[in-house]
Each structure stands twice: as structure tokens, then as C-alpha cells.
């Protein structure tokens, strides 16, 4: 099971947080801070796993992360997930974002966090991996976006006038 998925930048600013277990907002912020603290002090060329922090997890949980340019992608998972598998999943996630946003950068995530959520929802559901095939994910995301566009066409056009 995946307990949480966090994306934050090099300064610890959250760009996406998805918790598959309930925490209060304050605890969530603490977890993000703690995780950032744990992850950010690690060198570039060390391993991508570390034992979880105090707040999230416990002995059964691990933080698995990847660092891309200005962003950290952190998955908090328990022992039922394969460590290397999750690393691959993060890669798939990032590649999917790259395809959906066309050369994704931090700004895309900042301004379109809802879209990132929608993409993530096609990959992980309720803490369990739903789909790992990138093409399948993109197909579903595109189909939904198309639907959205057809619905909101009128509003879109008015907004674009501004």
C-alpha cells in the first residue's frame, strides 16, 4: 500500500500532497516538512530509499523518492510494495506528466495541481497501484479532458477573452 504521495520543491514548498490515510491539515504539513527535511539533506548519488520519519509510517514504512531538477517526488509505502517497482512507478508518473504538459516544469505543477491530481488518480487509487502502463494512463486522461472541454466550451471562450 502507498500511504502518501508528496511532491515538493527544493525549498520544501508542497506542490502536491496526496494522503491515502486521514491526517489533520496540521499533521499533513508536519509530515511534509519532516519528509522534506529527511530527503533534502541527502546527497545526489545516494540510494533512494530511507526509513520513514516519525510522523508517517513506523518500521514497516519506507520513503522512496526521486529528485528531478527542482522537484522531489516522494512515495511513502509499506513493505508490500516493491522498492524498485515504486521507483519505476515514479518514473512513469513523471514521464506521464511530461507527456501531458509537454515538457513539464515546476510551474506546470504549481498552476495546475488539479490536473496533476487527475493524472495521479489514473495511476494510484486509494493507495493501490491502478495502472502502470503510460499509454493507457494518457488515453484515459485525454479522454476525460476532452469531455471537460466539450462541457465548458462556453466558459473557456469567455475567459480567453480576458
Amino acid at each position, binding site marked *: *500500500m502507498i500511504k502518501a504521495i508528496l511532491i515538493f520543491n527544493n525549498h520544501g514548498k*508542497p506542490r*502536491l*500532497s*496526496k494522503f*491515502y490515510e*486521514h491526517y*489533520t*491539515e*496540521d499533521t*499533513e*504539513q508536519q509530515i511534509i516538512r519532516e519528509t522534506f527535511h529527511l530527503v533534502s539533506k541527502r*546527497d545526489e*548519488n*545516494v*540510494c*533512494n*530509499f*530511507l*526509513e520513514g520519519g516519525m510522523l508517517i509510517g513506523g518500521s514497516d514504512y519506507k520513503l522512496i523518492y526521486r529528485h528531478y531538477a527542482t522537484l522531489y517526488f516522494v512515495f511513502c509505502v509499506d513493505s*508490500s510494495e*516493491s*522498492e*524498485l*517497482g515504486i*521507483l*519505476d512507478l515514479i518514473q512513469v508518473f513523471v514521464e506521464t506528466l511530461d507527456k501531458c504538459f509537454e515538457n513539464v516544469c515546476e510551474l506546470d505543477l*504549481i*498552476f*495546475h*495541481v*488539479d490536473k496533476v*491530481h*487527475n493524472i495521479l*488518480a489514473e495511476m494510484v*487509487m*486509494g*493507495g*493501490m*497501484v*491502478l*495502472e*502502470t*502502463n503510460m499509454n*493507457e494512463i494518457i488515453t*484515459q486522461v485525454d*479522454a*476525460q479532458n476532452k*469531455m*471537460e472541454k466539450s*462541457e*465548458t466550451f462556453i*466558459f473557456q471562450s*469567455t*475567459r480567453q477573452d*480576458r
Partner: protein
Amino acid sequence: MALKIVKGSIDRMFDKNLQDLVRGIRNHKDDEAKYISTCIDEIKQELKQDNIAVKANAVCKLTYLQMLGYDVSWAAFNIVEVMSSSKFTYKRIGYLAASQCFHESTDVIMLTTNQIRKDLSSPNQYDTGVALTGLSCFVTPDLARDLANDIMTLMSHTKPYIRKKAVLIMYKVFLKYPESLRPAFPRLKEKLEDPDPGVQSAAVNVICELARRNPKNYLSLAPLFFKLMTSSTNNWVLIKIIKLFGALTPLEPRLGKKLIEPLTNLIHSTSAMSLLYECVNTVIAVLISLSSGMPNHSASIQLCVQKLRILIEDSDQNLKYLGLLAMSKILKTHPKSVQSHKDLILQCLDDKDESIRLRALDLLYGMVSKKNLMEIVKKLMLHVDKAEGTTYRDELLTKIIDICSQSNYQYITNFEWYISILVELTRLEGTRHGHLIASQMLDVAIRVKAIRVFAVAQMATLLDNAHLLTGNMQRNGICEVLYAAAWICGEFSEHLENPMQTLEAMLRPKVATLPGHIQAVYVQNAAKLFATVLKSQEGNTDGTVTQDTSQLMIERLPVFVQSANLEVQERASCILQLVKYIQKLQQKDVEVAEEVSALFAGELNPVAPKAQKKVPVPEGLDLDTWINEPPSESESEDEQPKAIFTKEEPKHSRARHTEVDEKELARRREARKQEQANNPFYIKSSPSSQKVYQETPGVDHIPVIQIDLTVPLKVPGLPMSDQYVKLEEERRQKERAEKKKKDKKKRKEKRSGRGKKHDSGPESEEDITPAHMVDIVTEEMPETTYFNALPSDDDEKDPNDPHKALDIDLDKPLADSEKIPVRSHRAAEAAKSPVEDRDADGIATQLPKKKHGKEKREEKKKKDKDRERKKSKDEKKKKKHKSEEKDGDLLGAEVDEPVVQSEEPSQASEPPTSNSAEVSDLDFWLSNAPVPSNIQEVPKVAAAEAASAAEVISGGAQDSEPDEPKDAEMEATKPSKHKKKKQKKEKEDKEKKKKKHHHYHHHSDGVGEESVQNGTVEEEEEPLPSMSNYCLLAENSYIKMMMEDADQVYDIQGNLQDGSQVVVSVIFENKCDSFLKSMEFNVLDSLNSKLQRPEGSGPHDSLAVPFQLPPGVSNEARYVFTVQSIVMPQKLKGTLTFIVKTEESSTHEKLDFKLHFTCTSYLITTPCYSDAFAKLLESADLKSSSVRLEGVNMPFHHLLARICFHHHFSVVERIDSCASMYSRSIQGHHVCLLVKTSGQTVSIDAKCDEPMLLGNVLDEIKQTFSQC
């Protein structure tokens, strides 16, 4: 209205959208909070509008703010509104917001039930998808209950996109609503073979997650997963399955055997590192679960270790990390194979990556031996010096202590060295683990008597140099060691060189800066030292020394009397008055030394950690009742007495010199007394220093060994541990030389307590003798309760674990009451929401109805099928069902109302999905698979199975009651199952007295119990085509002897896998009150049958039984025999030797037995279709033979069951009083029977391609029936 909408959308143009909000926040970096609060106000305004687009926009922004840590639960209702929008765009926004901030205690959730149900059944697959995704995040028990049925339906949706989501979410539903697991499981199982790989993967995912928590309930799925494993190419699925197998193998070692080969193949073939790693992991799990003695065992271990070495040597840090992680798993069971890679692991200690260093440290723990402990610790000490960053250094420190103290200091040969290491560790600055070092010092000094002299000397030095340790004591946990030092010096002060000097050191004014609990120990132990000084000066006529000492005490103690710490203050003032009194007496030349030292007389013994828990509560004492009125909340909070020897409280140091007048002191003291009297926890918080010992592991009895001390006891100053390494080397060399001289004089004192753990060490582990008189005092334990004191770890499981509720037997038949609640009136009413939609209601009420009809039809179909099956007596079914069905049959025969009675339970027993085609497929796969199939590998389970079947028969035969406990059985989880068994057994006992199936029951009863003890009943769901037969070994002539000490029951089971191998399971039961050990099993081989012995052992060597037996315990071992010819029964003579160990003595005992291989035991129950059977009979090469049994007085069902049970046949077809049966020998001979009955005469016509075998089998059948 229309105008309003237009107005709304115009307004909206001027609202901020999410992007504007983000931009705004970025532009207001300085006053972000203020800006956001204005935004929230705006959002609140927007939410008040009717326009759903405005609301959705507002909710979208809220979702973002939620991520930044703002509580948005106040908008929960608006979120529900947005969720219920008919537009997908808004719906999605609503569900996203809900998934981010709804949780179980959000009360508006109950309003969503109908909306979600509507969305789930939406024609648009993305509406459904979005609802499922959202629901997966905030499902509550109520939602789970109300929607379970809808989600179940979606699992069979036409679109794989919906199917996979529905399958995944079922896991969440199960967690919240465990009752849904059993009804939903069959469909979930179906999805394992869904044509869409995504759905399949989701199903695997869910079942793996379920099975991880309660693996035993999912053992029966093993064959299915095995198939998936060998066929799937999706690495993600493979990884999950392989991980699942890792969880299953500990429960079923035979599964492990089967797995090794395909896993090894995968290891060799795969290029995906993730898959390789998981394979290695599971192979390790398999190897751990298998008892040793597997032929290619070491090869697999070698393969794993070798692959892991490659991972560890890889430049990828991730692989290195995982390699070390997996290595530590091997270490637990196969330390030797890991130890050979010590170089590599030590190398990892130097890695720049902390995670990797930590993993390597973990490994070191298991790699130490007596021989290399000093060397390894030396290396670690170097790292301690080098390590920057306190976390890693602290980790090193704890590891050093862990390594040294493990298994009750098993690997320490020289305690002086260890004390020096501890003293060296005190030089670490800023460590948090001062208390750990301190507790080790105390533990060693108390429990190793021989070291006390040395320890006291060291501690005195430490006290003398206390200023070095306390340089920066505010943040310095290391001063905790002074606690230990002071206590050791005081308690064992008779060993002190110069007690005066130490006393002086303990009373320095600087001591008052130490934390309170340490000061208290200082004061108390100063008094002890004082007593020692007085005693040592006893005979001395010159009284100046004693006078000086008293004077010193009187001068220095007042500082402590003024301490802010109550404990210090109290002790100091007591002792001060005491010393003043003593001084008075001294001035009168009165001898006081004797009395003073009597204050501290008596020795303290260590107490076992669990001892307190085991002291029985005296009768009439209720610890939960209040002694006095409970104190008011506020009072008890602020002045709770602090637990001794816990975290230091730095604040005390500053308050040390506050002048407190006597009145105030008295007042405080009074207040404190009051406080203590009122505080029910007071006793708890002052368990004195005993808490310290809790860190030490359990203790074995360790006999004392007398050895010459070769290390000089007096080491001046702070010793360097290094010199001990050198000394140790020399000592060992000397010892070796000595040893050579008197080689013949074998050491009799092989230290029994530790012997078994030892063999892990390298070559001459035993030769290294400790340098000290290692007198490790055993911890004390209250005697009366000693025995139940030991295994009390069952409280480990968290009672609140949600997965506990999912521990449900999935193979038990479904009861009617177990249906997932279809939407009822009540639910609809409860979920009356403002956004409720009529349409939704209409659809929703329609749907379940339809469903219901369908279900009914399905049920009916099943009923029909069942009837058919019953008629044909077809046995190619899952084992469980077979036995259950038989239950019905026999029962029916007895009561003379067969069909109706037996129909009921077995109809219920049919899990909806297991249609017969699938099951026989499974059987087919099992029996014909070229790989070792697990039918043959689970004889024990088969036996348990058969036994329980028999039990059921006897229970049912008496009266037709199995219907009665049915309901309970359906709902019940394990405990009630046990209860049921008990009931049955009682019934059975009753029956035994009354009925004549004596022999039969005798067997099954015994075996059944055996199996229960071995904990294998849970596995009875394993699909097995075979039954087996346990009976007493060497029944007649040795039964007396067996009664005395050992009882053997054996079961012979043919093994198809290897043409001529027979596996014999022997259950050893210890019937006496003593411990049985060193059991050795031997059989005199005949020309035809041979016991398989491990490679390299001679043909007459005996095999060690791989376990010992405490009183009353039974265990099972299996032996493989190779048989040349199977046409004749065989008898093999054998002996079992063992040692009976009582408290005083141990005696060698021997038990002879005869293993009887009947021809029946070479037969394997093999299912056969009637058409194949007919063909077989037609073929000419079968020889026929027949036999008549007279006077068989039992119903025909019973007769058939007995043939199946005892002779491994299966019924092919049965028509009235005539049945055809089939079996196959391990060498492939077909045996066909036609059994007819008329009156009391039974005639059996038989055909077989081996007449000799046939004759013998028929004789045996005859034998069986003549016995009853």
C-alpha cells in the same frame, strides 16, 4: 431565473480562478497569510452563490489551500453540492476536493450515499470512475455497507476501466465492512483470470494485500497464483505474486519446495532487477521456512547470496541497499553463508550513504562470533571517532552495545575489555545514549561478579574525572553514566582501592550541577562509601580518618539538602542527620561501624524483566479501584514524581542554589506526601533502578567456568580497549598451545545453555574460552509462576488493527445471512440529502431487484448441478467439498432421509464460483503437472483433512445435528470453530461408548487431534485428491513403552513425482514429563526399500530428528523412502533412540518399531472420469480378480467412504448399490474396482495391470473390513 444565471456567469468572470489564486499567493510572499485569508473570504462569498460553476471554482481553490495546510472542512457541504453537479468537470472537482479533505468523521458524508450510487451507475464511464476514485479515499463503514453491492456489480462491468477500479476499491470496502469479504470473494477470485491485464493486476493487488495480513486464509489460492506466476509476463503482477508467496510459504513449507524451481528459473532468466530482487527475497523466505535437509538447499542459498553480492557490489546505491537488506534476512537462518562476505559488508561501513551504512551495521550484528567480536568492535570504534553527525554516531554506539550484549553477552570472552569499551564510549560528546551505556555498566557489574573489582576501579576513575564528562552537561546525555558509576562504586565499595578519594570525588560541589536523579544516587552512595570507610578503619586506634570522613560529609552534604530536587533533598537531609549522630557517637569513642554498614547490608540480585508482571495479584486486591477519591485533574498534572533514570531534566541545574527556608521545605514535603498518597500512579513511577535491567535479553542458565586469569587485573588509568585485543590474541595462542598438549582431555563442560546457538560461529568457536570467570547471575523470577511466565508475547498484536476483522475463512460455505445488504428502505431514508435525485432513486431501487432475481437463478442452477453431482458421486472436486458432501451422505444414510437432509448443507457449501469444470481443471493441473505438484507434497494436510472428515462423520452419525451449529459456523471465525470441534468431539466420545466403530474412530480421533496441535487444520482447504491413513507404529509389542515416553503415529503416502518414492510422516508425541532430545531415527534398509539419507552418510547412519520435544508436545518429521518394487507389502525394522532429560539426569532410551508399507500405501487417489474409466476397462491388458466380503453390516455409503479413506480410491460412478472405483499406484498401475452390495454381502470385482499388486490390495481391503 435566467437573468440570475447570466448575472452569475458575468460575476464569475471577475472571480479569481485557481491560477489567479496561485499567482496572487506568489505575489504576496510577505503577507501570504493575510492574502489567503482575504481569498478565503472571497471563496465564502462565491460559495453562497447559486451558480454551480462559481461554486466549483471556489471548491477548486479550496483544494489548493487545503494542500497548503488550511482547514477547509467548513466547506464540506459545498463540496457535496459540487460533487452532485451533472457536469463531469464540476463533479470531478467536487470528488477531488472530497477525496482530499473528507474522512470518517465528516458528517456530511452520509448525505453522499445516493449521489455516489447514482454516479456509480452512470452511463458515462468517467462519472463512475471519478466516483470510485473519490470513494476510495473517503469510504466509511456506512458507505461501504450501503454501496458494497453496487461496487460488486461494477466488478463485472463491460468496461475494463471500471472493472479494475471496482476491483481495487473492494479492498477499501473490505477494510471498512468486513462482512462483505466472503460474499464478494468468489467474484474477486474470478477477476484473477480476467482477460484484461489491468483488471487482473488489480485483483492480484487486492488479494495480495488481503493475504499479507491473514495469509492462512488464502493458502487455497496457491495453485491459482502458481499458474499466474508461470504464465504472466507483467512484471508488476509477478512481483506482487512472488511477494505473496513469500508470505504464504512460512505457513506451508511444501509450497516453498514447489516454488524453488520456477523462482530459480526466474532469477536466472529475468533482466528486471526489481523482479530478480523479489525472487531472491521469496527464495530466502522459502529457505527459512523449510527445515534443513533439502537436497539442493545449499545450492539455492548459494545462488541467493551470490546474486545479492552482485547487487551489493553494483554501483547503483539502490541495489546496494536492497542487497544488504535481503542479506540481513538470510543472516537470521544461514549466518554462515553471509559471514563469508564479511569483507564486503565491512567495506559498506565506509560507504558515503548513511542508509547503506546503517544496513551494513544491521548485518554486523549477526556476524560476530567470539573470535571476531573484538576485531569488529575495534573497527566500529574507529568509525565512531570518524563519524560526523550525531545520528549515525549514536546508531553506531547502540549497535556496538547491541552486538556485545546480544544473547546474554554470548560472544564476550573478556569483560574487562567490554568495560573498557564502555568507558571509552563515554568520551563521546553529545550522545543521547548515556543511559544505554550506564545500564550496560550496571548490568555487567551486577551480573558478572568476577568483573566487579575491575569495574569498580574504572568507575572510580570515571567519577574522579567526572568534570571531563560533564563539560557541557546541558545537552549532554553522557552524564547518565555517572549514575551507574556512582552506584557501582557505592554498592561494591568493598572493592575500592581508595574509598576516601572516591567519596571526596562524589561530594564535590560541582556535583550539584548534575541532573537530580544522578545527584540522588550520589548522595545515597556517598553514604555507602562512608560506611565502608568506617568499617575499614574499625580496628584502627587512631580515629582521625573516621573523624575526617564524618567531617567531610557534614561539610559537603548541606549543598544537597538545599537541592531543588526532592529526592536529593530528602536523602541528603536524612543522611546528614545520620552522620551528625554518628559523629557524636564517634566523639564518645563508640564503635559504630557495624551498625552503619548494617544499613546497606545484603546483596541486590537482578530481577528478570517480566518478573513483576508474573507476581500474582493477591486475592481481594483490586488494582483498578480508587484507594482514595480521585484527585482533581489540575492538581495531579504539574507535580508528578518523575521516573528515576529517565530523561534528564536540564532545568534543575539552574535552580540548584535557590535558598529555600525550612518552612517552605516542610510545606513542600507535606504537599508531596499528600500528592503521593493521592496519586494512584505513584507506585508505578518509582520502580527504583530495576528498570535498568529491562534492556537485557532473557537469560539462560550459564554454568560457571573456572579459568586462569591471564590478564592483569589492575590497569592504571583509563584503559585502552585495544590492548585487550592484543592480550586476547596472546591468550588464545597460549591456550591453543596448551590445548594441543592435552588433546585427549575433552572439555566436559560444553556449556549446554549456549551450545545450540553456537554452531553458527566459524570453525573453532568452542575453543575460545572466556578470560574471566563468567558468572552471569541469572535474573530472578517468582518461582510459583515460572512456567507460564515465559511465553507471554501474545499481546503483541494490536487489537485495533483493522485487518484483524478481515481474518475470515474464505472457503467456508456462504450462509444466506451473509449476503451483501442490497439497498434497503432504511439506508435510503438515512441518506436523505438535499441533492437527492429522483432518477437516482428509481434506478437504484430497480437495479438490486434485477440483481436479486439473477442471483436466485444462479442459485437454482447451482442446486441442480449439486444434485447431479451427488447422484453420480463424482469425486473430482475440491477436497473440502468432498468431505462435506460425505458428511451429508453418511448422515443421510444413518437417518434414512438422505436427499433432503444432505442437500441443505452441501448446497450451502458450494461457493458460488467454483463450478465443477474449473475445479476439475485444477485437479487435472495438479495431478498431471510435470513440476512437482503439491498434491503429493501435502500428505499431512491430507491426513488432517481425512481426520476431520472422519470426525464429522462420527459427529453427524449420531444424530442429524450439523444443521444446528450451521449459522454459528458461517459467521464464526477461528475461535468458534474450535468450539464447534469440541462439541463434536464430545459427541463423538459419547458415541464411542455406544457404537461399534471403535477402531475406526480411534484412529481418526488421534490423528485429528495431532493435526490440530500442529496447526494444520487451517490448510484443509488445499485441493487434494488424496487421503491418507495414520495409524500407530509398532502397535502391539511396543505400546507399553510408547506410553512411557514416545508415541509414534505414521502415515505413508505415495509420491507421484518420483516414480518410486514414498514419503512417511511420523508424528512423535512426547507422553512423559521429561524433555526428549537428540532423537535419532534409523531404519534397517531392505533390498527393496531404502531410507533416503543425506549425501555423504553411510547406509546404516541414523537421521537426526530435527526437533526436540518438551513434555506433552508432538511434532512431525517426514522421511523419504525409495522403493524398487511395489507389488508386495514391505516391512522395515527401525529404531528410534533418544535422550530423556529430567532435572537431575538424562538417560538414553530406545524404541523399536516396524514400518509397514502396505500395497495400499503405494496407491494414490486419482480422479477418473467415467468415460476414461470405461475405456480403461475395455483395454485388454488388465487382469481381473475378485473378492467377497461376508457379514458387512454397514450402509453402502459408509463402505465406499471407508475404501476411499483407507485404500486411496476415488469413486468414479455410483448407481444404487453398485459403484465403480479407481486408483493408481505410484508407478502408474491402474486399479479399478466394481463394488456391489446385496444384503450383508459385498462383492468386489477388480482389475489391474499388475495381478500381484491387485491381490495384495484386495487382501488388505478384506483385512480392513474383517476388523470391524
